[in-house]
């Protein structure tokens, strides 16, 4: 399904901002909010996982229904999950396209990666656990 994805702040994301490696932060930033009708179209329910793919990458997220959003639109808290599918081109303004990202959404059984895993994919090295 083609959707327009935007990212932004949420209270849970903000509350865990000092604990980026916690389960709470991971959960708060890896939920994909979608209209219930779109979930129906995908044949999934809240809590199911989806693969979200843009021109810049692909990431596994947990879908959640909300009527606050219009169909064919999706919303995600800002954070490393959103950034896994955000491009670095800024139209020479300095600001990447964190909003209005064209994405393809499909159901999946794959697990949501941890923040450390996302960092390792791009060449980072986890500290501690």
């Amino acid at each position, binding site marked *: 399904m083609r959707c*327009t994805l*935007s990212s*932004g*702040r*949420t*209270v849970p994301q*903000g*509350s*865990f*901002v*000092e*604990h*980026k*490696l916690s389960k709470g932060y991971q959960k708060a*930033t890896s939920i994909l909010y979608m209209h219930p009708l779109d979930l129906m179209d995908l044949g999934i329910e809240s809590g199911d996982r989806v693969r979200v793919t843009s021109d*810049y*990458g692909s990431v596994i997220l947990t879908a959640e229904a909300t*009527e*606050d*959003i*219009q169909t064919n*639109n999706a*919303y995600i808290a*800002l*954070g*490393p999950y959103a*950034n*896994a*599918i*955000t*491009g*670095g*081109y*800024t*139209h*020479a*303004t*300095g*600001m*990447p*396209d*964190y*909003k*209005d990202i064209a994405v393809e959404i499909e159901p999946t059984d794959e697990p949501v990666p941890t*923040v*450390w895993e*996302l*960092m*390792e994919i*791009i*060449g*980072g*090295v*986890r*500290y*501690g656990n």
Partner: protein
Amino acid sequence: MEIRDVPCPFCGCLCDDISVRLDDNRILGVENCCTLGNAKFLSKGRLQHPIMRKNGKWVEVSYEEAIDETARILSDAVRPLLYGWSGTVGEAQVVGVHLGEEIGALIDSTTSVCHNPSILAIQEVGHPGCTLGQVKNRADLVIYWGCNPIEAHPRHMSRYTTYADGYFIDNTVTDRKVIVVDIRRSEGAKVADEFIQIKPGGDYLVLSALRAMVRGRDDVVPDSVAGVKKEQLQRVASLMQKAKFGAVFFGLGITMSRGKYKNVRNAIELVSELNRKTKFTISAMRGHFNVYGFNEVLTWMAGYPFAVDFSRGIAFYNPGETTVIDLLERKEPDACLVIASDPGAHFPKSTIEHMAAIPTVQIDPCVNATTALCQVQIPVAITGIEAAGTAYRMDGVPIRMKKIIETNFPTDQEILERIVTRIREMKRDG
């Protein structure tokens, strides 16, 4: 023990009425704070020692070794980047700017990925603004455009707008109208008198239509603009003109969406136009508690609010060229110092890939996503709790952050000063 009137080191609201209960140098409880601030004051867990990556493994090192390594990395670099700054105080930012000058670095802050477009717009058309107390005491119309105060600035409405007592406002709930403009029905939209839902990317077009209407040129506007009916726009244009004091607050909904600074510019020009009819102000909902402070500091020291390139010995500024995302995307920096921010969590993948590929040092109290990208991390005192200094509220009001807890961790300023000193020694010794 209770310490009153503590400024909160979380968001740009910089609420300075927090009461903190302490016992034995530990925070037991916090009053007046929102969920976000609360979480920060009560946060536990931090990096205890400087760490460094040796042979692919993290090892604990002394402050001296970590600072030495940082100084070496920065001195060797041809295109060093100093990034972050918004989560620390002006006194540390000043040292950062001098460091940038000293080593011919690029210096940029988190502004680059939040309200950079607002600044670009202000640089084109100016900024009719005010301090938040003007809104609190006078505004009978408040417009939140592309921002979500309930989630991002939870006390904004109760301290400064909708629910705040005001000198010229008899009943704050009935005497103030609230308009929310967003692409989704946010929490704020639910308490608004009027909600305008725009198609993603359509803010600019709606703003142009409102400007034409305020000028009395409804005739040129089509029946529907970016998903908004013309009738609703006319109703809103009329509400705006009837207000005695209107205040627009805008957020990342318009700075990050298509058009970027042009959206903000259009919003500012709408407000300037409205000032011909009545009183109107516009303000950015700044994120980090001191994101505005870095803009102020860099401006008085180098002339520009962010994204300055010192490589040619003068200050050069050109967002899109000297901004952090563009630099990393083009793989220009060959070393990076990150302080008081977490690009690992907030930058697009391709850009942090480059950060992981070059020597990167982070100065931060906590282990965060950026830790994984670094060669060195130096833990410091938590600014606003363990270290004092100046922060600038979203409206430009400077407030002194307090130190309420004693700590053995050095401050950002101390670490930066030691790095500068070490770099000077290295230069002197050739």
